[in-house]
């Protein structure tokens, strides 16, 4: 299950893009801002608006074949306006025609009219004098599916050649995104970026129970996806021996980057947001209860790094910036958008999500400072315990204690004397995120960008060795 996101629709482009052989040019920032100018021209109240222009190609692999290839184009506008008394209404449409934009304003106004008065109204920022930093961009995000299909096919062959009979699954998402933001105070900004996200699952069905391995990549240049490396890594994490059992209990763990991403996913990120603090369930509300976290763990919000999926501004047009989240065991204050900042006399940290997305501001570009240990060094530090490639279906058990539950998946191993001894059947865990961080003994030097399929969040994480991790039950596979 997931929360609703941006509209998946597409609107009639009325911004007059050129045509190449019947195919409209991709939307530009200028197209987006022109569309928003038309909207603001008929906006009778303070407000801000976002233009999304996106193109996506998705190639799935299933049963070692290309499956459900799909193309999607959409343009949409979301409007948030403020009636007298700080009453806010928002609305979204893909109908970018004049009547469509007029209806959008009416919809948002109707909603705002009946909204309660805001206790602490916020104001929209003026256009800052400093321009947004340029982003790296690859034209490969606009290519058709031929090249990635061939790359995906090669990756499938790479795996199949080593493990005949293996079932290969995965997905490749290639996106071109334009976000433009304008408000009634004069702010006009936008950017375009590319998103590439690839994953590969290798299942050895000749084993009973089947064994599986996993690899994933994310970046802004689809042409730079290391498909061979992806296949090799999925293979490398696939167990080649019969899986043993580990009884439920507490074990030391080595968490691979994908597992670290799941550990630091939804609950932890939400806990660092202003809403969680305002609602009282974030661990930030009770600093005295936060366990001592070793200084080798340092986290920052790093939205501009080309090693991730850079974004120069948030959905309110506030410039995103690098910001320390955790240093020397001390967490910084929560992330803010304009509204939460106004309520708490803080400043927006540039972490606003679009108003149509629930949940409030969260860090979306969390970056863990890499350590010095290579893989063997991490295994040596672990000594004896469980190596986890990936977690699955992680859900909150207790938000205040950052307690989560989930399963291991796609390559779980028992490590003895600093060496991988044998694969083990998957395990369920119930564990506090903070307790895991507090027991970190080593951080790997590898830093890996891992993102969701549309690049809304992109974390840069490193493998971690941590102490007691509570595995509560096992499986038969």
């Amino acid at each position: 299950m997931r929360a609703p996101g941006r509209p998946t629709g597409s609107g009639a482009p009325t911004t007059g893009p050129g045509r190449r052989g019947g195919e409209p040019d991709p939307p530009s920032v200028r197209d987006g801002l022109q569309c928003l100018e038309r909207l603001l021209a008929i906006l009778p109240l303070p407000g801000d608006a976002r233009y999304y222009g996106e193109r996506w190609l998705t190639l799935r692999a299933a049963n070692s074949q290309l499956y459900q290839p799909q193309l999607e184009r959409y343009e949409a506008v979301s409007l948030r306006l403020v009636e007298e008394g700080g009453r806010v209404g928002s609305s979204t449409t893909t109908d970018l025609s004049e009547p469509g934009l007029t209806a959008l304003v009416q919809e948002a106004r109707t909603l705002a009219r009946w909204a309660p008065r805001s206790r602490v109204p916020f104001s929209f920022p003026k256009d800052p004098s400093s321009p947004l930093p340029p982003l790296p961009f690859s034209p490969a995000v606009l290519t058709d599916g031929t090249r990635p299909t061939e790359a995906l096919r090669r990756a499938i062959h790479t795996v199949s050649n080593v493990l005949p009979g293996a079932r290969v699954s995965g997905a490749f998402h290639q996106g071109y995104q334009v976000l433009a933001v304008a408000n009634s105070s004069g702010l006009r900004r936008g950017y375009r970026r590319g998103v590439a996200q690839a994953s590969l699952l290798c299942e050895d069905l000749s084993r009973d129970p089947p064994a599986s391995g996993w690899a994933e990549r994310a970046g802004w240049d689809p042409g730079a996806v290391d498909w061979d490396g992806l296949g090799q890594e999925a293979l490398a994490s696939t167990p080649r021996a019969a899986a043993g059992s580990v009884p439920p209990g507490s074990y030391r763990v080595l968490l691979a980057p994908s597992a670290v991403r799941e550990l630091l996913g939804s609950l932890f990120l939400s806990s660092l947001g202003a809403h969680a603090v305002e609602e009282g369930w974030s661990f930030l509300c009770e600093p005295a209860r936060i366990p001592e976290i070793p200084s080798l763990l340092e986290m920052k919000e790093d939205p501009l790094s080309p090693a991730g999926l850079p974004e120069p501004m948030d959905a309110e047009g506030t410039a995103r910036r690098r910001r320390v989240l955790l240093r020397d065991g001390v967490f910084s204050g929560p992330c803010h958008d304009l509204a939460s900042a106004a309520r708490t006399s803080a400043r927006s940290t540039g972490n606003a999500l679009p108003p149509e997305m629930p949940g409030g501001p969260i860090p979306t570009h969390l970056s863990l400072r890499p350590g010095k240990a290579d893989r063997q060094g991490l295994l040596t530090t672990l000594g004896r315990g469980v190596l986890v490639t990936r977690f699955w279906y992680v859900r909150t058990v207790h938000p205040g204690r950052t307690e989560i539950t989930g399963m291991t998946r796609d390559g779980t191993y028992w490590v003895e004397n600093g060496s991988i001894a044998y694969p083990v059947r998957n395990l369920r865990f119930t564990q506090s995120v903070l307790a895991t961080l507090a027991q970190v003994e080593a951080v790997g030097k590898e830093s890996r960008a891992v993102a969701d399929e549309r690049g809304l969040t992109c974390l840069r994480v490193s493998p971690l060795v941590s102490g007691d991790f509570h595995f509560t039950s096992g499986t038969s596979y």
Partner: protein
Amino acid sequence: MALAVDTARRPGVRFADARLLWPRASERLVVRNGQAETLSRQEDRGIGIRVLRRNGWGFAATSQVTRDAIRSCAHKAERLARLAERTRPSPVPWVEEARGPRNGRYATPVREDPFAVPVQRKLDLLREAERALHVSSRVKSGRASASAFLDRKWYASSDGASYESTLVHVGGGIEATAVGEGEVQRRSYPTSFGGDFAQGGFEILAGLDLVSHAAECGRLAQRLLTAPSCPKGRMDAVLSSDQLALQVHESVGHATELDRVLGYEAGYAGTSFLSPPDRGSFRYGSDAMTVEADATVPGGLGSFPWDDEGVPGQRYPLVREGRLVGFLTSRSSAGELGLSRSGGTARAEGWARTPLVRMTNVSLRPGSRSVPDLLSEVRQGIYLETNRSWSIDDRRLNFQFGTEVGRLIRHGEMQGYVRNPLYSGITPEFWGSLEATADASSWHLWGIPNCGKGQPGQVARVGNGAPWGLFRKVQVGGGG
């Protein structure tokens, strides 16, 4: 529509279909702590075109509903199908569909159009309910929400199906979050994660009577702060209708989706512990377990006249008296299993996504015993109600669920509350421990508006019904 299908039907194309949504609209109202946190409406429109060549599928979608754009979109879908053929050496299985009415119109019966009801009326309802949650200062957060969805869809296929449908879905709920004693406790009504949903008009939301239930919701959230921890160990467990419905959703509904069983969702949503030969023989649970998929239930969130492959909605059993007898199927997956007909469960979110095998209304049938009679079977056990957290592995075997409410049961009587209850198990063992289900008076068809699956992600609105159920020797534990 004809232009889309005709353009897509080029030489070598076995099947093509098109779905136009105009509009797909939604409205979401959220009141949190007296403030309107979200007042938003979204609307989009567009067309999705799917092409099946001999060995591969292609799908493309656009909102430009002009002749040129539709032709271009159809060509793209056909080109993608050619690309897909490069990786598949054998034909895509496919079953024909000729039964039932395949042309027509359907519209959800609506007494009050939820989009036409004044916002003030809806907000007044939510504000009053949210205000009533705050029974003390320990209730730090109150939340009342309501959503409405409208999908107006035209469908046409190259094998002659053609229909127009207008589905309207409405729902909402309330939740109180109490904080104190180092604890955070949440209590929701009528169920968690946004409440209950059904097909119909504003009358669905009004009928939930959120205001009348709000104060009790707040009181219980506060009370749970100081409740003792849930005991650990194996014990009898009685699951409420809403918790058991979610159990059905996660451990039966998803597990019987044939695309998962056949490995097509392995890369993301996962597979299933079931395999094709299990149909007709696999012992899923006890004799008390009968589960069916029914797309024809009036008012069900997972009800529809035709699926997104032009197949009429159907009712059929998945598990009969504990034995697996069916899967949720599409035309392609049914063909791969050698079935003569699709179960009509292929659905897509909106116009920009390709259809997947999805649940319809997948429900556990009620038994014949009253709830007091069911409870009288428990000497020492626990009652579990309203999901708080859920997690299940990628094969739908190993699960752990937490609930908002836990109450001890002694000699058939409900006793005091316990906090942070959890229970866990392995799917067939758990269903094998189902002693009995209560009668229809405890059965409810719950609407789940956010069932996720697929790449790119799709959210489906589905229904899951269940009565109260008694399970023996369940592993129960406390989250502290």
